[in-house]
């Protein structure tokens, strides 16, 4: 069995709970949401670059970097004050950040924000059971494209498919819903049922280096202490199933089924799960403080094995978020690491051998 070894903690750590750390898709920086401020750390020096404060009135729960090739980085923040902030780096001084715009609309705490791969659509979800999709229509100008209200409980997480304009959302109502646009209207094209309790997080299988004939799969983790893999049933493109799921449109419903469950390792709620681009391994963290890495069996695909476990990653604290990224570690090389964020306010990097 491989091992998960601690590399370093990002310095200085926050003094109170940190909710999530999001690495930039291309630049070696990472943003951590702690309280009402956002900390930008360098993944080269592993130290703090800047702290952004003053935009939100309550804790920032989620943050996401805008994909794209702009000279200046842009990040979206979702806060418990029901607003979503969009911040851009100052053109002249890359260590300064402007609060470009605040997006109002949600009626209660925003739980997750996510940019589509193209960078033009932003999805946000909230305790008010709705998922909103925003589109950038001009410089610093966003319009609401859709307000999707089909979940029956707090929506915990939204994630975009790596390739298509397909959105997945996970909720307190135990369901995962998939959304697509049909001409002008966004509607729910599938409901993934199976979890027995709140689905806390989801992630899509990265595109590179996998079986191209099967579409990108979805992984989800839940309060029911399971991690499940979902895939789309083949042959859906030909079938035009009439769906009554949305009020106005006739959508083509898709069928998604549960393909596998990862071996049960966690003993408490699993809060976050991430699928690696480099190794296609999955890592999960949760309330029991464990960090668990899984790999798919090469011979018998759809069978997963535990590769490594680390207990008490953040002492006795719960671990809220996990992500894969690349960082420059001791010895000067850049390699893939696991980033965990905990209730202790610390962000830690781990190597998986």
């Amino acid at each position, binding site marked *: 069995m491989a091992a998960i070894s601690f590399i370093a903690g990002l310095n200085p750590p926050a003094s109170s709970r940190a909710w999530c750390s999001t690495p930039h898709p291309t630049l070696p920086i990472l943003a951590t949401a702690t309280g009402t401020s956002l900390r930008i750390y360098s993944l080269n020096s592993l130290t703090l670059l800047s702290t952004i404060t003053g935009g939100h009135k309550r*804790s920032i729960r989620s943050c996401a970097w805008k994909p794209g090739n702009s000279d200046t980085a842009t990040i979206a923040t979702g806060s418990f004050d029901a607003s979503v902030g969009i911040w851009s780096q100052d053109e002249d001084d890359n*260590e300064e950040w402007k609060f470009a715009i605040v997006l109002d609309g949600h*009626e209660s705490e925003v739980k997750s924000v996510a940019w589509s791969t193209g960078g033009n659509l932003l999805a946000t979800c909230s305790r008010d059971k709705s998922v909103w999709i925003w589109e950038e229509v001009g*410089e610093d100008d966003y319009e609401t494209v859709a307000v999707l209200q089909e979940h029956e409980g707090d929506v915990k997480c939204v994630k975009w498919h790596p390739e298509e304009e397909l959105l997945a959302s996970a909720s307190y109502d135990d369901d995962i819903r998939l959304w697509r646009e049909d001409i002008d209207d966004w509607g729910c094209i599938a409901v993934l049922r199976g979890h027995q309790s709140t689905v806390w997080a989801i992630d899509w299988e990265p595109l590179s280096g996998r079986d191209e004939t099967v579409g990108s799969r979805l992984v989800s983790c839940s309060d029911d202490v399971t991690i499940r893999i979902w895939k789309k049933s083949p042959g859906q493109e030909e079938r035009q199933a009439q769906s009554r799921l949305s*009020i106005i449109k006739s959508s083509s419903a898709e069928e998604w089924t549960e393909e596998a469950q990862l071996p049960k390792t966690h003993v408490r709620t699993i809060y976050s799960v991430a699928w690696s681009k480099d190794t296609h391994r999955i890592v999960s963290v949760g309330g029991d403080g464990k960090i668990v890495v899984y790999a798919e069996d090469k011979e018998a695909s759809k069978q997963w094995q535990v590769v490594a476990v680390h207990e008490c990653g953040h002492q006795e604290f719960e671990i809220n978020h996990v992500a894969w990224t690349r960082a420059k570690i001791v010895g000067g090389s850049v390699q893939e690491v696991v980033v965990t964020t905990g209730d202790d306010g610390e962000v830690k990097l781990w190597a998986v051998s």
Partner: protein
Amino acid sequence: MSAILSADDLNDFISPGVACIKPVETLPLQKPEEPHNPYEVTTEDKLPAQDHAPAQISLTDCLACSGCVTSAEAVLVSLQSHSEVLNTLDQHLSMSIQHGNLSEELGNSVNEGKIFVASVSPQVRASIAATYGISELKAGWMIDHLLGGPLGLASGGTHGSGFTWIVDTNAMREACLILGADEVATSMSSPSLNAPSESTSAPKKPVLTSACPGWICYAEKTHPHVLPHLSRLKSPQALTGTLLKTVLSQQLDIRPDQIWHLAVMPCFDKKLEASREELTDIYWRPSSSREPTPPVRDVDCVITARELLMLADTRGISFPSLPQVPISTPSFPDPLLDTFLFPQRESQPSPHKRRRRNQEPAAGPSGGYLHHVLQTQLANSPGGKLHTIRGRNADVVEYIITRPLSHPNPSPHLSHAEQRLRDSSNNIEDEIREDGEEQVTIFRAARYYGFRNIQNLVRKLKPPRTRRLPGAATTTKQASKNNNRSSIATKTPNATAAGNINDYSYIEVMACPGGCTNGGGQIKVDDVGLGARQLKGTDRGNEGMSQKQWLEMVDEAYYSMSSSDTEIDDDDEGDLNMRDDGDEGEGDRKGNEMVNGIDVRNVRNVLRHWSESTGIEMGQLCFTTFREVRSDVGKGAEGEKDRVVELAGRIGGGW
């Protein structure tokens, strides 16, 4: 944990419920216990039960609290149901009318009896028409039979009570359209276009329609900054209610609460509208009333199209078996209003007997407010041309009226607005050139349907300052720099495809995408198969139809005016069907002013007559107000929080 007690980091656990904004502020006086012995210890079960006065929460307070609003609204809405209709019919004898007066026989039981009146919206008729594969006209007759005919509700129940008059809301809608166009004209000619207006004065430009209660409740609760823009007009439902209650109470010499008005509407939010305090008789009751009575609603109960069918079902009446012919009803006490409300009556002399035209598809399925305003503008602007620009989706459409630059300007009061529009130049005007002549924009309007589009509208109407938060500080690890003020973007954020939102004169706003024919209470495609099979001989083949296709069928029924509906007057001169051509801006009959198919002069006459005969001012009859619904949850000064926490502690803690 409640939102008041923990203003900061809220964890993800769902709180049991946000604290009610009506905490127990006045604790009831506790009865002093006799010989209070300080050494006496008592146990929990020996404590006397405390009688608390029942907590009173008004609808407005409840809507302010977003924590439990869904359950509260659901309760309020469920109080108006088909069961309530049947119960009310069973409790009261319906007073009969003969020759415009209450029948003498009921002299003794006048106090127990009620006059039952109903109003039905055209979208409901369209929904029923599409369900059973019949025309909208026939659907209307069947509804009349159910509510007021001998084979309908009056055939059963405790007293055999039924509805005496069933009114089409299209009648008062005409009044709403005309008064709406007047409001726009006033707002455009108002000298101080951007002055803050008081609640009773005219709305600010752009004027937003206020007939949709879903939109109004949302605006009052979440976006009070749009309230100054709202049209002050009552909706057709509310105006019909006021008309029926004022006229009948006066003409028949009965109290308003002896009239029971049922409205059949396409959505549930209309039930909330009926519960509004502003739409009760205290706003038009003569101040010299004998005794102060509790407010009486203008609309007592609202049911939806689906509930209408449930109504029939509960009483064991087969709706599809009802006759598809008009019913006969007694004359309405006021002859002028009788003609206005029931133009297709058998007894009408034939030149006047005409059925009210249905609207054109351009008007939309929500009353056609915008369409009428545009038609009125066109009528007043010779040489004017209308351009339609579709927005980001089918529910956002923008309209521009242009006229050639060289054309003389007939209405002086437009020039000021015109000048402003010319100054805010943009690409659209360059593109619109008629016959090589430069066009100038004289009027801008839009339609915004659906929640997601309303979001964009309210955002554009917000004062720009509040959309950005300047002063967001960033600190670097080297040194903390000064506050980095965000720069105001050079592109105006409240721009639309055709210019700044504040240059718009009128915006029709509806909460339901697709308009009122797609209301929440309409018959859905899933229910339809059943209905089609019930009606013999029509197999619509609805299997596998999507809601979108179903909606198209309902819309078709809504706009239809089939020529086969001339059965009722074969020997007529052919006045019955008003054709579309020849109505635009021209007088169809000598001396009448027809705009958008509506006889404007006649309607104004009717309104004037109504006001004069009841002795109530037009303003009180036709206009209403809105108010910001404020929630105190989690807000307020520190002192308030402490006070509330203290009170909570006193009554034993725990929310």
